[in-house]
């Protein structure tokens, strides 16, 4: 299969079940909401090294937030509810509670939940108070610029993590340009995030390494500087590879983001320097979610 002259491998991305929550962070201005969102989603690229994968899903206008202020919705993914609870506690506690003028709300409903204000309230040292408004319960924690208002609990749902595709091209600039186009398109897809820096990963990994202490290491098959000495997966003309990893609240969201990203990456055609699109998998034996590239693009 070819898309604008770019080869699309007949392969699939293999993804895994995760647990996810959505938080809505608001502030007096979108700049401060974004600052809090970016801070709390820093160092959250991979569950292997960070314990959680997180990113800003989208910016929210005043009409779409619980308090009528501008905000951002943030998606966080972890391997279990317990891991997610720890990440939410630490990241909201250190990055949102501390950020001027912010408030934090649950963005998902559901029976399964993780504590939000319920664990952060102790910062109030006894001066905190709960307030139920309608069906929602908030904690009011006194801070130096007023009160930090935080919803009591946040809903958790089953989600999909690890959708991916790789872009192979003739130059680093060409592949980066394709990846940037892809990310711009994928950010329009709701319920999905790309947790790596700017949404893009250059360090695609394989499971394990020659070192006992390292559970994941560089995927030499796709390293262009090694193609003369390893069993390379790259054509001679390929000089650069970038990967986009996608986490989504649903399988459909991951698939939609992948399709949008691949189409945008290929928009400049083979003339743009992109050679091939492929995807990472483990032979289909580890992850229950398989995203076949040809099916996504049909």
């Amino acid at each position, binding site marked *: 299969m070819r898309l604008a002259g770019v080869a699309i491998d007949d392969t699939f991305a293999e993804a895994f079940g995760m647990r996810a929550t959505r938080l809505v962070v608001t502030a007096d201005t979108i700049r401060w909401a974004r600052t809090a969102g970016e801070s709390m989603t820093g160092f959250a690229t991979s569950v292997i090294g960070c314990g959680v994968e997180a990113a800003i899903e989208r910016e929210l206008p005043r009409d779409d937030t619980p308090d009528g202020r501008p905000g951002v919705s943030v998606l966080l993914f972890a391997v279990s509810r317990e891991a997610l609870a720890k990440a939410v506690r630490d990241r909201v506690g250190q990055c949102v509670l501390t950020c001027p003028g912010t408030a934090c709300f649950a963005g998902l409903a559901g029976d399964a939940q993780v504590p939000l204000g319920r664990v952060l309230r102790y910062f109030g040292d006894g001066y905190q*108070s709960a307030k*139920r408004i309608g069906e929602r319960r908030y904690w009011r924690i006194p801070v130096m610029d007023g009160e930090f208002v935080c919803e009591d609990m946040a809903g958790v749902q089953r989600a999909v993590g690890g959708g991916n595709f790789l872009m192979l091209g003739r130059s680093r600039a060409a592949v980066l340009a394709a990846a940037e186009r892809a990310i711009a398109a994928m950010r329009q897809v709701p319920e999905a995030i790309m947790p790596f820096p700017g949404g893009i990963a250059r360090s695609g990994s394989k499971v394990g390494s020659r070192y006992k202490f390292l559970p994941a290491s560089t995927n030499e098959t796709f390293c262009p500087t090694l193609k003369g000495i390893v069993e390379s997966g790259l054509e001679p003309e390929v000089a650069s590879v970038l990967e986009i990893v996608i986490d989504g609240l649903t399988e459909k969201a991951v698939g939609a983001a992948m399709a949008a990203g691949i189409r945008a990456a290929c928009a400049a055609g083979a003339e743009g320097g992109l050679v091939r699109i492929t995807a990472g998998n483990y032979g289909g034996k580890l992850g229950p979610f398989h995203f076949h590239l040809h099916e996504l693009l049909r």
Partner: protein
Amino acid sequence: MTRLVLKAEPPVRVALDGLIPERLAALSPAEIGRLPLAVGNRRELVGDWFRVESGDPAQMEIEGDCRRLDRIGAGMSTGSITVTGDAGAYLGIGMSGGTLSVAGAAGFGAATELRGGIVRIGGNAGDALGGSLPGAASGMRGGTVIVAGNAGAQAGQRLRRGLVVIVGNAGAACGAEMIAGTVVLGGSIGVHLGVAMRRGSIIALGGAARIGPTFGDCGVHDLLIVKLLARHLAALGLGALAGRLGPLRRWMGDAAVAGKGELLLGT
């Protein structure tokens, strides 16, 4: 809609316990008419005082001069009851769900020990709105009561949870012994407000007659939680009241007890 039309104003007080949508759902008008009714200290039948017209059992309407009808909607958990005139004492006592609307005024003890649902009173409410029964540890434990007019003394006494909205003024000892929850007043509030309150919020946009010495002035603040409350009030159809919520002076107390309650007063 199932309609109960009062045939004549009763000479004594009548208790309407049990005449709620979930209890009448499976009954025909004739069967409803044969239900017992406590009229003063006598036991009579519903049919002696009401003309029963059948309809959607989830929606009830009580028509007539209902000032002597007490305990309307007592224990109700679902559906709706509409009273076209005034209501007597203990309107919606112990109610846990559904909607109870009174076009006119309500008597003593409306929404006593409310646990859920919405009580709407189109006129004034008597004393002990959303309060507790004598000896009870707490009053309202959930739900919402909205009074379009004024309320008497001791509104929200021992409030544990839930929302009391009084668009007009409230009498003395509003929120006395409050445990938690929220009282919102569009008007002013009488003396002894929040006396012995432990936690919870009393918001009075019209200010207060006098604030006790066991409350501390924490200054004027534009609180986000008030904005959230304003949006909730607007969703309840109280947009005019919600639009008036802004910066308020915060007093914390009552220091004679836990001292974590707050009075938010119009400036």
